[in-house]
């Protein structure tokens, strides 16, 4: 038997070290597990700080013992390489494991075990956890705002039609493929506008009129983001081309426009659209609040889109322009058929980021009094029958937005891979 030196584990007594180390590591994790899940403190007889730090010290020593390079055991080597390269790394690993173990029981009990979902009044919430009853009761308001309950099928129907129409591209035949751009850029937005104007807003064909002030919740978030996405893209593209133009007036106008919108916060733009813009219009001219907000956000985001697209235009080699010109193409032909398809492909991640920012900016429309989901939460929170559930509301909204934004970023990543071409 070789001499054992516990400060310097080596390969000679591999199994002695590995077993002692694993046992120590297990003890430390088990101690934290017991104290957080079952509230049993095994080391309660020790003074406070020691009892608190003991699992960390024991675990650290255990990790130190099993840190043996090229031990020949596959899993041990994998473990050492990934989470246990040095004492510092080991300590961080242990801390993260401990934090996860300690955070699990309280969050589980808040979210599930102590939470309530039954009933439909505040009194049904008796547990110490979350009150999902609140979300359940207010769900319609969070989704549709103040839109009358019996008319909400109109929002559902128009959204379903729009989503169905959005998938046309997947099912169209080869012959129709060339019209797809036209369809998505011009026809689809027009259909969307008509649907929203006649079906959601109503007022004709025997449908009851619902003013835009009553729209709200998540559906309003979708409507605003949808139209802003559609409008800001072409405007941004024109601005990007304008900025690269060699006609001075157009160039400086674009530069000034872009720099102006990029330099101010969205909230002041919305303020402008709600308090300053009406001053600039003839007195008897009425423009709906929602329309003003959509115009403001579109112009604001268009400046960001323009800068992203400009990056793509600049990244294209000069040869592309020269080749297109030598074929006798004019300015528009060259850009539509040669330059933009390549440039846009390059900037997919940037554009996706801008669109994500747009979706995340939509809650700001509350400053002009439109109640999308964050605004509805504010309203529900101050309702005297439902005081004290701010946490549940914000957690709910955060989850929804997180899912939307995460899905968008993953989708853009897939697009990026799909259109990646070797150059």
């Amino acid at each position, binding site marked *: 038997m070789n001499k054992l030196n516990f400060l310097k584990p080596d390969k000679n007594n591999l199994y002695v070290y590995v077993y002692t180390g694993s046992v120590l590591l297990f003890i430390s994790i088990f101690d934290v597990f017991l104290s957080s899940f079952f509230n049993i403190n095994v080391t309660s007889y020790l003074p406070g700080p020691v009892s608190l730090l003991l699992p960390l010290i024991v675990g650290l020593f255990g990790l130190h013992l099993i840190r043996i390079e090229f031990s020949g055991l596959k899993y041990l080597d994998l473990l050492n*390489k*990934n*989470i246990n*390269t040095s004492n510092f*790394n080991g300590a*961080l*690993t242990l801390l*993260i*494991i401990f934090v996860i173990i300690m955070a699990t029981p309280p969050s589980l009990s808040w979210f599930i075990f102590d939470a309530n979902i039954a009933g439909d009044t505040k009194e049904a919430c008796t547990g110490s956890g979350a009150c999902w009853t609140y979300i359940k009761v207010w769900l319609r308001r969070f989704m549709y705002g103040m839109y009358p309950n019996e008319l909400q099928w109109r929002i559902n129907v128009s959204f379903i039609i729009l989503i169905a129409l959005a998938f046309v591209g997947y099912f169209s035949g080869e012959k129709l493929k060339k019209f797809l751009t036209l369809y998505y850029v011009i026809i689809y937005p027009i259909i969307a506008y008509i649907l929203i104007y006649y079906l959601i807003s109503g007022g004709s064909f025997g449908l009851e009129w619902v003013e835009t002030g009553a729209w709200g919740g998540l559906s309003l978030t979708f409507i605003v983001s949808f139209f802003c996405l559609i409008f800001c893209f072409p405007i941004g593209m024109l601005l990007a081309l304008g900025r690269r133009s060699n*006609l*001075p*007036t*157009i160039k400086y*106008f674009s530069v000034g426009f872009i*720099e*102006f919108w*990029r*330099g*101010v*916060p*969205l*909230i*002041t733009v919305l*303020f*402008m659209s709600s*308090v*300053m813009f009406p*001053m*600039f*219009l*003839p*007195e008897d001219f009425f423009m709906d609040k929602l329309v003003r907000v959509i115009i403001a956000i579109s112009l604001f985001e268009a400046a960001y889109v323009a800068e992203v697209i400009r990056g793509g235009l600049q990244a294209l080699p000069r040869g592309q322009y020269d080749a297109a010109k030598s074929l006798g193409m004019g300015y528009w032909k060259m850009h539509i058929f040669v330059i933009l398809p390549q440039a846009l492909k390059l900037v997919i991640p940037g554009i996706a980021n801008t669109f*994500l920012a747009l*979706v*995340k*900016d*939509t*809650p*700001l429309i*509350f*400053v002009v009094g439109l109640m999308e989901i*964050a605004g509805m*939460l*504010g309203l529900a*929170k101050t309702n005297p029958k439902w005081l004290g559930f*701010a*946490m549940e509301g*914000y*957690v709910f*909204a*955060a989850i929804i*937005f*997180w899912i939307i*934004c*995460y899905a968008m*970023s993953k989708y853009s990543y897939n697009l990026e891979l799909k259109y990646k071409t070797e150059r």
Partner: protein
Amino acid sequence: MNNKVKKIIPQLITLLVIIFVFGFFTYNAQMNMDNRGIEFGYGFLKQESSFDVQFSLIEYDGSHSYARAYLVGLLNTLLVSFIGIILSTIIGVIVGIARLSPNYLIKNTAAFYVEFFRNIPLLLQIFFWYFAALRALPLPQDAEAWFGSTYMTIKGYYVPLFVWNNLDVFLYSILAAIISILIIRSYAKKIQENEGKQLPVLYISLGLLILLPLLSFVIGGVNLEIKTPVLKQLSATGFIFEPALSLPPELIALVLALSLYTATFIAECVRAGIQGVSKGQKEAAASIGLTPRQVLKLVIMPQALRIIIPPTTNQYLNLTKNSSLAAAIAYPDLVLVFAGTALMQTGRAIEIVSITMLTYLSISLAISALMNWYNKKIAIKEK
């Protein structure tokens, strides 16, 4: 001829459209203001504001002018941005480096943090901290001390008050220390280039930075009194801490949300910057005998910073602009004080909104000008 016309006509059309739109707007604005009997002008800035602001860095009350109210709002905005920038840089750099760690758990925890906070709207995060998280804090009478004598309560964070005598002397001494350090550094660089000798610049700088302010205490007449917060009863149920510096919960919620949100973007910038330095650089530097510290300081960092700094400044700008969301939780920043309260009182929408936008615009343009200058300075000078 044909070519010339082709160039002039679109420009002419653009110009005409711009002039027409602006003319239309000005005409309408003129008509509207005539109808309502308001005159355009910035004279109202000198009038008495007659509203109070809860939190102000400079002396202010209702008897001061609107111009002063504007300054209060601007300073509050700058305060939030300043604290936010510092915190988000610290968190962002740590998380960015952690994302490159060989440790599987650390790497994924950092990635989780980034994906989590980046995909939730900032406004919701601010609301969450302000309306949900900070409302769960104890009342002043139930609060326990953190770090000895600071108290985190529902009414704000109370920290000990520092009472300075001759603060200006102390600040001048720090300024003097910084200037002398800069001089010594350039001198040391010269010596190293001419004679190859290395001066212990770090120790000299540290010494100066400690010694000069210390001297200002000993002979400059500076002294510092620390007043620790003590619980004081105002009424039957109202308690506050006095004497103390109280950071309002609005400020805390705003700074927390802004820095946690912006840090995710800064972390990505830092990660991209470090990954952007090619491995060959590190190996080449090591092969000519530089120590790991020298490799980091002389080879990796200068190149990584060149990639990191431009997008990071952009994030700082975003943070400053996002601080305007303060209006949503009633933190008295520029937008709330000036574009909110002052606008409601005076009704001068055009003047006030334009001043507010111009302020943000000039901050942005100033920082981007600085950025361009810096970019030119550090750009690789190719032959």
